């Protein structure tokens, strides 16, 4: 029997990966006013990495993305708890956040939130947890 390879899947993945990651970044920044946010963005990014894992294998992907996903969870928690505790430094209650409106070039009137930093933490925690679970399932034989 001929050895089957997945050339079509690998070639399609190389293009689709960037589309999915771009969509996840869009979902991340659409949050707070529209449906979206850190959780769904992290899930879409880990979906893109899962597609990479399906098309190639664990060895190739861990060479291309040399992250220890357990440490990604730690960095994400640091962001989230740091933003939550940041209000305490200024004598405000826990989880207080600020926002302001800025006129940026090209983008026009934009609102800048400290909630984005909290969302980055959620994003990293979701990616780290999902990829740790999936890699642990995939490695066990």
């Amino acid at each position, binding site marked *: 029997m001929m050895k*089957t390879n997945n050339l079509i899947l690998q070639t399609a993945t190389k293009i689709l990966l960037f589309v*999915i990651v771009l969509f996840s970044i869009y979902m991340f920044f659409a949050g707070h006013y529209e*449906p979206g946010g850190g959780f*769904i963005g992290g899930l879409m990014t880990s*979906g893109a990495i899962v597609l990479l894992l*399906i098309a190639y*294998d664990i*060895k190739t992907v861990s060479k291309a993305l040399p992250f220890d996903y357990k440490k990604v969870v730690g960095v994400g928690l640091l962001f989230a708890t740091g933003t939550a505790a940041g209000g305490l430094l200024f004598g405000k209650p826990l989880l207080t956040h600020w926002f302001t409106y800025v006129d940026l070039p090209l983008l026009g009137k934009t609102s800048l939130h400290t909630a984005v930093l909290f969302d980055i933490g959620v994003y990293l925690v979701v990616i780290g947890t999902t990829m740790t679970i999936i890699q642990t399932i*995939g490695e066990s034989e």
Partner: protein
Amino acid sequence: MFEILLYIALFLITVAMFGLIYRVIKGPTTPDRVVALDALGITLVAVIAILSIILRTNAFLDIILLIGILAFIGTVAFSKYLEKGEVIENDSNL
């Protein structure tokens, strides 16, 4: 008139979804079930598109993309399991 056409299309897609659910439950072989699940995802996208025309909103367009991507990844994972027997390989060059 256009609204009536949209409701008729919604009804027909719902009937198609019932046929696909029958195939997912009854399907004699696993590939039948996988193809039916993929087609269910596509009909779900169609239902959401028609609903967002009826409701005159563009809030659901992100969800169409999301369901499309998730259905694609799910179908790819099922297909690889059927073809190779495992979804995520440790080293494919062995």
